[in-house]
């Protein structure tokens, strides 16, 4: 009897699932769990050890090509991967920008040398990446940026100021967008560089967020020498490379966040079971139940929307402007989700994340604050709506 390809695929998918589930059950240990007393640098350190563990077993970047340390997994296996990570409540990986943005961009448009040099260490977490796009006067209008690079022999000399740079002060490398032609229209004078953050002239300063945490930073570049071979794509064509990165940020990145939202929804349901309101568990309150159901629908459709969209993006292709819908969806649903958690806590919601009396070690209070950043970071909701209006619906540009 010969098996059909579909049957073979199903069997290899189930073997993949079983192997991963088994591995996770044996390898998620307490040393990879963060506690609330850790600062951002300490958290990243824990995540790096976890990412290294994953990498050594071949469980990070499963959809990436084998030659760079990935697993070359199929789309359905990548879906299974995300499901199993959610189920096992696996800790987060450290290299968010590297895995979600820098890596996919280098895979799409980088040179063979760049791929060989950077991709394996992005996967292993050995080198942490940050993304230098935003500037003090260029937020949503990122193409108006003024940081500049001037060619000098085999190098570019970079001067400029970047802000809101996630992982900025713990990063080893930066994908940096700079202006190389000041005479050209704003989108046509930009170039995209890979910058070693240990280069002379680079300085970083943590920026403290309203949560009290410092996940991001500002970066200063003063006469920083960047080797010419670190140019990604062509000179003055950096905007298209940046769009590639942003599309990945909205598309592929959403794919990975599905795991987090499924975990968070389960945690919210647990909270509603644990918390008592007016003498009965919150989960029995009809008003709370309706809102839980709405969020359940939100999380479920976010997952299905993401899978459906990613299934159209065959390997190596760049996700389209529909990714902006995914970004809108997750950022706004997360705000609704953490708001409900905050409200379920009733009078306890007034406590700060650090309070010993706050439920779940103050996690929800922290997330409640942190979520306000979701509709600003990675492109504000206003910018995402403009992108969908113009590029998906074809409405006129303002």
């Amino acid at each position, binding site marked *: 009897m010969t098996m059909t390809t579909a049957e073979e695929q199903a069997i290899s998918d189930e073997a993949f699932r079983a192997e991963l589930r088994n591995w996770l059950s044996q390898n998620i240990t307490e040393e990879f769990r963060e506690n609330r007393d850790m600062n951002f640098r300490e958290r990243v350190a824990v995540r790096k050890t976890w990412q290294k563990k994953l990498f050594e077993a071949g469980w990070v970047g499963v959809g990436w090509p084998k030659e760079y340390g990935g697993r070359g997994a199929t789309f359905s296996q990548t879906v299974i991967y995300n499901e199993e990570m959610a189920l096992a409540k696996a800790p987060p990986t450290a290299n968010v920008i590297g895995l979600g943005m820098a890596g996919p961009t280098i895979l799409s448009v980088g040179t063979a040398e760049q791929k060989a040099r950077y991709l394996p260490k992005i996967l292993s977490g050995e080198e942490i990446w940050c993304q230098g796009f935003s500037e003090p006067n260029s937020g949503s209008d990122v193409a108006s940026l003024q940081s500049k690079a001037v060619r000098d022999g085999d190098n570019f000399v970079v001067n400029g100021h970047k802000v809101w740079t996630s992982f900025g002060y713990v990063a080893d490398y930066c994908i940096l967008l700079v202006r190389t032609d000041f005479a050209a229209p704003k989108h046509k004078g930009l170039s995209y560089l890979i910058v070693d953050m240990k280069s002379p002239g680079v300085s970083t300063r943590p920026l403290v967020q309203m949560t009290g945490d410092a996940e991001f930073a500002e970066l200063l570049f003063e006469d920083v020498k960047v080797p010419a071979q670190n140019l990604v794509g062509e000179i003055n064509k950096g905007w298209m490379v940046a769009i590639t990165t942003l599309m990945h940020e909205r598309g592929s990145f959403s794919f990975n966040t599905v795991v987090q939202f499924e975990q968070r929804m389960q945690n919210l*349901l647990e909270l509603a079971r644990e918390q008592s309101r007016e003498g009965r568990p919150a*989960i029995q309150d009809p008003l709370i*139940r*309706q809102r*839980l*159901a*709405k969020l*359940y*629908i939100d999380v*479920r*459709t*976010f997952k*299905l*929307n993401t*899978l*459906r969209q990613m*299934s*159209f993006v065959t390997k190596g292709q760049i996700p389209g402007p*529909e990714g902006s*819908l995914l970004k*809108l*969806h997750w950022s706004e649903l997360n705000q609704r989700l953490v708001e409900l958690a905050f409200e379920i806590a009733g009078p306890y919601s007034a406590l700060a994340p650090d309070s010993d009396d706050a439920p779940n070690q103050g996690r929800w209070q922290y997330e409640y604050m942190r979520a306000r950043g979701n509709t600003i970071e990675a492109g504000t909701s*206003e910018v995402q*709506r*403009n992108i*969908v*209006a113009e590029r*998906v*619906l*074809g*409405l*006129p*540009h*303002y």
Partner: protein
Amino acid sequence: MYFDLNSEQKMLAQTVRRFVEKECTSPKIRQIMQTPDAYDADLWNKMAAQGWMSLTVPEEFGGLNESWLTVAAVFEELGRGIVPGPFLATVALAAPALALTGNANQKARWLPLIAEGQAKATVAYLEPVNSYSFDSIKTTATPSANGYQLNGTKMFALDAQVADFIIVAAMDGSDLALFLVEAGAEGLKIELLEGMDLTRRLTRITLENTPAAKMDGAKDAREALEQTLFRACLALSAENMGGIQWILDTSVAYAKNREQYGRLIGSYQAVAHPLVDRTLELTSTRSALYQAAYDLDHNPTGVAEAVSLVKALSSDSYRQSAYTGIQTLGGIGFTWEHDMQLYFRRASANWSLFGDPTWHRELLLKAVGV
């Protein structure tokens, strides 16, 4: 899960769209909705000639027994064109109910007639109370010489005024059961309700010692009725999705052409952004619909969750789209003349048909063990 329609399903959807554009123009719809029964025999026969009445009928009774994804693709287009008449009641409600609960004779008699477009039918399960629960069913069935007699009142029965038979949920002692009542039966009275949706009719059915045949082909009638409503909700959600698509297409086209203050209004973010929000809801509805169709076709354990999810989501989204559609069009959107009002009315009626979003969200939580 399904990520997309296959090429055959896309071709079928195109065929339905072309048919609707030709046969169901706005003047035609408005003519049909003026008739007492919101029924047009000519349109019905043309649809039957396309074979669409046979979509949900098992093959042994002359049907196509199509996948629910294919059925959904057809309903999406019918919803997009706001096609009037008893198609939903017959194809998505009565045919599945009959296939699930009818005995051999009942199926052999009626299913081939449905498949050929010779019979129209519906299911009546709600009563004159504000409840979607089967527990509120009070209509009684008592054994008689030739079968059963039904007594009670049914409300909100869809398009019963043109049905050749009505499947009625009633209490046989302490058990819920389904009964087949033929048009013209003694003691059967059907009154039209003034409904929000002008393209379909809701009815009140009074049963007074009305002769009926028990549908005893299913082990558990309660579960069979639940399974019937899963199918009806899927079809209705597909119809909702088609309606949302029409509203969005119409609103976007208008915003690209209408000029005020020297600019196209679609360039204003205050006009554009609500249309983007409706686009996201439409995308989510499509994903949820394909998942529910997949579950009905392949994964029985996921059906209750997936169907209630898409019914709740599509109902709220359709209504919201209609609000945005009217607002985008401005004055013309608020007129009798513009078809936007027909979609608003359909959205409002579909919202509570087969259970409103509040009801389905509660069902969803129960289905996932919360």
